[in-house]
């Protein structure tokens, strides 16, 4: 899923303080799972902002709504009738949701309420870690299902660097060395011969290096 984190409240206040009617728009998908932009967080943020404006002696209308998804035309249509009632929408969706909402509703400022961080998983309650960088050409088949592009600090593709120590990465004792994980897993799978194969130089043009990307699927296009 897409993992997002809360924006500092000061930054949010700075971005909305001029508006009198604000809709806080949550999203039921990834940001709900990572507890940054779902219905619950919409409620908490709305209360915090109401309190702030009350303290300032300002009369600001703050409404709450959470859509099934903000990265889908269909669900975004649900706010069409109410959009004009607001001077700004504070979207707690990921960057995709913020932009998709903005593309649909041109005349209303759509502001981001979270920082979109990475593609990751919930390792334990309150801890999300990165698993994928969407490089566009997956190599997990050769690396025991562990991604060195997203999990090795140097994005090494052919074994660890000299800094790997006791299973940890040289950048921090809190970070597992991806290559230690890969080798352990290949060993467990009895596939260490995979490790012997030299991976070719990576084609980064399918990564963000090739400019904004798109997936075109004629087989499913209408």
């Amino acid at each position, binding site marked *: 899923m897409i993992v997002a984190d809360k924006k500092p409240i000061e930054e949010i206040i700075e971005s909305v303080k001029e508006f009198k009617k604000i809709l806080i728009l949550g999203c039921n998908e990834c940001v709900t799972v990572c507890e940054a932009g779902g219905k619950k967080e919409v409620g908490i943020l709305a209360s915090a902002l109401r309190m702030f404006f009350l303290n300032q002696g300002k009369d600001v209308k703050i409404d709450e709504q959470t859509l099934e998804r903000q990265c889908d035309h269909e669900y975004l249509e649900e706010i069409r009738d109410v959009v004009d009632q607001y001077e700004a929408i504070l979207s707690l969706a990921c960057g995709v949701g913020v932009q998709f909402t903005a593309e649909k509703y041109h005349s209303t400022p759509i502001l981001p309420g979270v920082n979109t961080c990475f593609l990751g998983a919930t390792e334990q309650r309150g801890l999300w870690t990165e698993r994928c960088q969407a490089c566009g050409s997956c190599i997990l088949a050769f690396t025991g299902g562990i991604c060195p592009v997203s999990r090795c600090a140097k994005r090494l593709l052919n074994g660890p660097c000299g800094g790997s120590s006791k299973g940890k990465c040289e950048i921090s004792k809190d970070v597992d060395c991806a290559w230690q994980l890969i080798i352990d897993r290949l060993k467990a799978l009895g596939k260490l011969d995979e490790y012997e194969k030299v991976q070719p*130089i*990576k*084609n*980064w*043009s399918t*990564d963000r*290096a*090739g*400019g904004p990307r798109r997936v075109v699927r004629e087989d499913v296009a209408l």
Partner: protein
Amino acid sequence: MLAEMEPPKGVDISVMMENASRVKGEIDAFVVPEMSNAVMRMSALGGALLLQKNGMDTVMQVCCRDRNRLALQADLLAAGASGVKHIMVVTGEDPGFGDHHQAKAVYDLTLLELLDAIEKMENGHDMSGIDLCGSPQFLVGSTVNAGLSAQALESELSEMNQKIKSGVDFFITPPLFDIASIKPFLSCVDLSKTPIIPTVLLLKSLGMARYMARNVKHVHIPDELVRRIQNAPDKARECVNIAAETVHAIKEHGFSGVCISTIGWEDKVPDILKNIS
């Protein structure tokens, strides 16, 4: 008078050195591109140092595409310490245009951030604010697209002003064939205050002239010029004449200088220089 001098794709520098030496006395400095069009070749730093070593001044390009802030600063220190006095900052074309499509572009710094870093270094600090042991001093150039008009020109001019505020001392334009075509730009810029150096590109053939006239936006090649090449018995000669005449016109017009670009035909630079009336 500047001339572009592409470093070689390889380690044989004889052609570059020979071409440069032939016009050494007539060219004030050689502009050394940093892998233009994202085609891999010797770095601008390498090319500049080789020319400098042989007593030729250079304008070394510094490009955001291939290096992060560590490498950019490191190379600027190397350049400064080796006598490079003029640099030119460019964003760089996407690797997709070049011959290494699979390369990862860096773009750690934007052009304005790079300018800011250069200013900091000139004032004795690196980007992290740590003191340098001796600071480099550069005359800094950048590009400006003088061929724009209307709204596009407006934003180009505001970007140009931003660059000036960030320390740019001179600007080099894309190829110019017809001064009248950049009138909108000239009416907004005081040439005595802002040093503008148009590029004079040596057309290599009728095909190139036609192609550019049709496909390169914001570069105006008058039909009459295309016809001239078409009707000339010796087309390459005519292209050299055209380049020489354009240099002359630019000098007459009060620009701060001119940059001759021959993209691979650097051996024609002496010919162009000889023909400037």
